[in-house]
Every structure is written in structure tokens, then in C-alpha cells.
């Protein structure tokens, strides 16, 4: 009995000592300090930086190349969240494991912006066939959606910090012009691909929004969730489809393993259709400066160049 009491006592003391030596109370300075905005994905961090400019300090929780579905926070993310003045996240279950926490922040007075709220719900695409109420979270691949999101972020920032409302609005307008230029670039480049070849085959269905906006048939091997394995039926059905449509290029994604795509390539080749892996597309995260893909606009241009160059080249080979 004595021994157990001593053990309990030791534990209590060590906890108390720990509490005593770590009383670094965080102060949240007001005034000229930039607004600490926590963004979940790299796309959202880029968006908020563009709209907020010098008045915000944006920290992205998920770094470049990280799949939001499998993100693991590190110790410094704890401070990031603790010091957040405002939280911006995608919504539509992209960050499903943290939504409850974000909602709690909101109820404690930390304003929370859901990017998906910045567009009409008619803009959402559903997944899982008819009658499904689950929405596809990859809304950023519609440039139109991202234009709406820009305006929404400007509104939300202005609400938090009315003093600089005009700046946010001006930044948003400037950024929307850049986004429109991006949409023009995408459309012009896609013109290079004959309509019959406009098929985008990737590892998981991240590009539905892109497909609808720019008239591309998008076929994914996996469901939306990168954690579900592709079934064998998915692969052989898709291989038949690719062989029938004479599709010559498929793409891998920066945040998803390329193993299933390799299995697909083998299956298609065995059906007598040449299929090549045309390179990496950015889906759930932006790239880095070394690849010149660290912003949303650069990322999208890189994706379009990869897609068009692959499908274009393959067309030339056929002649």
C-alpha cells in the first residue's frame, strides 16, 4: 500500500513540476500586428495570402505534397492553432477529422471561414451516384469556384478587420483578374487537344470540377478518398474503357501513390493499347519553388501543360 502511495505521489509531483516550468503564457497582440490566419491546405494558404496581402500572416497546416486525408500534425501546429486569429478551411469533408475542432474554435470566438460556403451549393458536384448527398471536396479545380472563393475570403477578412476592407477588395479584384487570365490560358491550351482525345485518367477522382468546367472527360481509378484501395473490378473495367477509347496517356498525382496507375498501365498494355504514364499532376496540395508550382496559378498551369503536352503528343504519334 505504502509503495503505491509513493508512486502516486511521485507522478503528482512530476506533473506539478512540469506545469510549473512551462508557464509560457501566449499573449495575442492587437493593433498593427498582422492577423494570424491558419489555412488547412496549401491552395487555401495561397488564396488567403493573395487577398490578405501585408495585413495577414498565413500559416498552412498541411505542407506541400501532403495528402489532407492522411495529414498528421506536428508539435508546432499546436502553437499555430493556439495563436490563430482566424481559421480558413476547405469544407465538404476534406478535413473531416478536424471539422469538429474548427467548429469549436468558431464557438469560442475565433472566426472560421469555410471556402465551400463562398460558392452556391449548385456549384458542388456530388459523388457516389444518384441521390448522394456527399459532395466532392476538390472545389479548387474549378477556376470559377476559386473566383467566388476570392470574393468570399475578401468579405470575411473585411468583416474581421473592417479598417482594411478596401485593400482586401482591391486585392481580390486584382487576383480575380489573374484567375480569369488563368482560365483563358487553360481554354487556349485545351484547344490544342482534339475533342475526341479529351480524356483525363488519374489515380483518384480529384479532377471532376476541372472536367466539367473545361469539357474534359475525367476518369478516376480510386474513389474520392485516397485511403480506399482500388478494387480489381475498377482496374479491369477501366483498362477495357481505355483500350476502347484509344486513350494513350494517364497521370499520377503528387499526393497519391502511383502503384495503382502502374497496375492499370500493365492491364491496358496487355489489351494491345499503348499507354504511357504522362507525369505528375498536382491534386490535393501545391508543389514547391524548386518545381515552380508553389502558387495556385503556377500549379494549375503546370497541370494543364502536363495534360495537354501528353495528349497532344500522343495524337501526333498516331498519324
Amino acid at each position, binding site marked *: 500500500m505504502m*509503495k*503505491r502511495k509513493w*508512486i*502516486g505521489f*511521485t*507522478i503528482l509531483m*512530476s*506533473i506539478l513540476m*512540469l*506545469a510549473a516550468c*512551462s*508557464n*509560457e*503564457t*501566449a499573449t495575442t497582440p492587437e493593433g498593427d500586428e498582422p492577423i494570424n490566419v491558419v489555412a488547412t491546405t496549401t491552395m487555401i494558404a495561397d488564396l488567403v495570402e493573395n487577398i490578405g496581402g501585408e495585413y495577414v500572416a498565413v500559416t498552412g497546416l498541411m505542407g506541400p505534397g501532403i495528402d489532407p*486525408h492522411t495529414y*498528421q*500534425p*506536428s*508539435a*508546432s*501546429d*499546436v*502553437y499555430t*492553432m*493556439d495563436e490563430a486569429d482566424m481559421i480558413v478551411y476547405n469544407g465538404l*469533408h476534406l478535413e*473531416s*477529422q*478536424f471539422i*469538429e*475542432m474548427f467548429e*469549436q*474554435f468558431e464557438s*469560442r470566438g475565433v472566426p472560421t471561414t469555410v471556402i465551400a460556403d463562398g460558392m452556391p451549393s449548385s456549384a458542388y458536384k456530388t*459523388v*457516389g*451516384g444518384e441521390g*448522394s*448527398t*456527399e459532395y*466532392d*471536396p476538390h472545389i479548387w479545380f474549378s477556376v470559377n469556384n476559386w473566383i467566388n472563393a476570392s470574393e468570399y475570403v475578401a468579405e470575411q477578412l473585411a468583416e474581421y478587420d473592417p479598417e482594411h476592407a478596401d485593400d482586401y477588395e482591391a486585392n481580390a479584384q486584382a487576383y480575380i483578374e489573374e484567375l480569369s487570365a488563368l482560365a483563358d490560358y487553360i481554354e487556349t491550351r485545351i484547344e490544342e487537344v482534339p475533342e475526341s482525345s479529351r480524356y483525363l485518367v488519374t489515380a483518384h*477522382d480529384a479532377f471532376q470540377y476541372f472536367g466539367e468546367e473545361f469539357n474534359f472527360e475525367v476518369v478516376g481509378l480510386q*474513389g*474520392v*478518398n485516397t*485511403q*480506399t*484501395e482500388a*478494387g480489381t473490378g475498377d482496374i479491369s473495367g477501366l483498362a477495357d474503357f481505355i483500350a476502347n477509347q484509344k486513350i494513350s496517356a494517364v497521370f499520377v498525382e503528387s499526393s497519391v501513390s502511383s502503384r495503382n496507375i502502374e497496375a492499370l498501365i500493365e492491364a491496358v498494355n496487355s489489351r494491345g493499347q499503348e499507354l504511357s504514364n504522362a507525369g505528375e499532376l498536382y491534386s490535393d496540395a501545391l508543389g514547391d519553388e524548386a518545381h515552380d508550382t508553389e502558387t495556385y496559378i503556377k500549379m494549375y498551369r503546370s497541370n494543364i501543360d502536363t495534360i495537354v503536352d501528353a495528349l497532344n503528343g500522343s495524337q501526333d504519334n498516331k498519324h
Partner: protein
Amino acid sequence: MSIITEITLIAVVVSIACALPGVFLVLRGTTMVSDAITHTVLLGIVIAFFVTRDLNSPLLLVGATLTGVFTVWAIEALQRTKLLGDDAAIGVVFPLFFSVAIILITRYTGDIHLDQDTVLMGELAFAPFRRLTIFGVDVGARAFVTMLVILFINAGFIGLFYKELKVTTFDAAFAAAIGFSPALIYYGLMTLVSLTAVGAYDSVGSILVVGFMVGPGLTAYLLTHELKKMIGLAVLFASINSIIGVRLAFALDSSIAGMIAVVTGTVCLIAFLFSPKKGLIKNTLTRRREREAFDRKINEIN
């Protein structure tokens, strides 16, 4: 209270809550039951989702706990037949339940974000931000409060049934002979294991559930032969591992859960090597000394 202290407190409470039933898992050689539970809960979540069609429903958590209980009961029932080994029983039940869940997901909910993490959102790093409010009053981090309750339930069960647990763990036949049912005690214990595993999963994430349940109990087992001391040591190591793990994680800016798991494993390995009673080094030395003594005896005879 600073944020590190709060995370440390949560880690300590969760680890002690897990270590208590963990001691008995170690003694019975069924530690991997905890690993099985963190996987089979998916089945409960999927089935509850089919009923509610809502990813945010609290029923999903209830479903998870019930499958956890069902898992340990099924494993226990298989083990009691004595037709297959303890680990084989886990090996049969866990993949079966887990794969049924995966099949249901791919067949019927292919495109929905449905996995354990959607429902059991445990992440130690963010645990202080998930508060529990009762009647508008913030009573503390949810993980801390729920796991404190589970800790008391576990401690209460072990305190009340200490003698029964001891006898049934070490000599089930004798326990049956003197009149109490080992089955009842085991099912009770296993239900607590399931409740603790799901609670801990929802508070700190899946890596730590297994680490917390197995690590401290195993370390204590290597250091003592007495059940009481073993429980005390398991509680002590659970706390120390958590405190060091959280500190290290902040010093190195890494995953907190991952770091605690590393510390837990390292401490266990140290006990395995250096334990004065059962350690590898002590064992090797004793064996060598005995061999030398034996050789000497042989030489003397010759």
C-alpha cells in the same frame, strides 16, 4: 495552464487509463487485442452509418464501441474453445471484421469519405482544442474528461475485483474450482478494454492506443513478479513515457503521438535489456555463470 501542460495531462490520463487493463492483456498474452479493436471499430462505424446516413452522428461512436466489445468477446470465445492459440484467435477475428468493413465501404459507399479517422478524430496535438461544455460551462478538454472517467472506471473495476482478476489470470481452473466464473471476469475486463480503446482512439489517435496498452504493462512485467507492483510500475511508466514524449516532441517539432510511442518502445527495450530480474543481460550472465560452474564441477569429477 499552458498548452504543453494540458497536452501532457491528457497524455498522462489516457496512458494510465490504457495501462491498467493493459497489464492484464500482457499477463494473458493477448496484447494485440488492442490493435484488433482499433481496426474492427471501422465495421461498427460503417454499420452505424448505414443506419443513420450521417457522418456526424454520435451513433457512429456507439457503433464503434459495440463492435469493439463484440470483437473482444468473439476473440475471448474462440480462445476459450482451446481449439486454437490465443494469437490465432485474434488473427481470425480482426481481419474478418476489418475486411467486412472494407468490403461494405467499397461496395456501398465507394465515394464517401468514410474511414475511422472521420469518426474517431483522435489527435493528441489538437486534443486541448476540443472542449467539453456542460450547460454552457467549459469543464475541460473533452479527451481529458472522458478518459478520466474511463480511468476511474478501470481503477474501480480492478480495485473491486482485484482478487478475482488475480486468480483468474494466473489459475483459471483453480478459480472455477473455488466457485467464481473466470468467464464473467474476463468478459468484464474485455469490455473495459474495448471501451478504453475506443475512448483513447477518439482522444489521442490509433498509434497510441496500442502503445499505451502494451508498453507500460510489458515494461512493468519485465521488472517485477508481483501483480500489485506490476500495476504500480505500469502506471508509473505510462506517466513518465507520456511526459518525456510530449517534451521531446515539442523540442524536436515532431508528431506528439509518434514521439510518445517511440519513448514507450525505448523504455520497454531498456527494461528488456537491463532488468535486474528478467533482463537479457542479466539472463545471459546468469546462464554463463551456471555453465562455468557446471564445467568446473565436471572438471572436478574428472
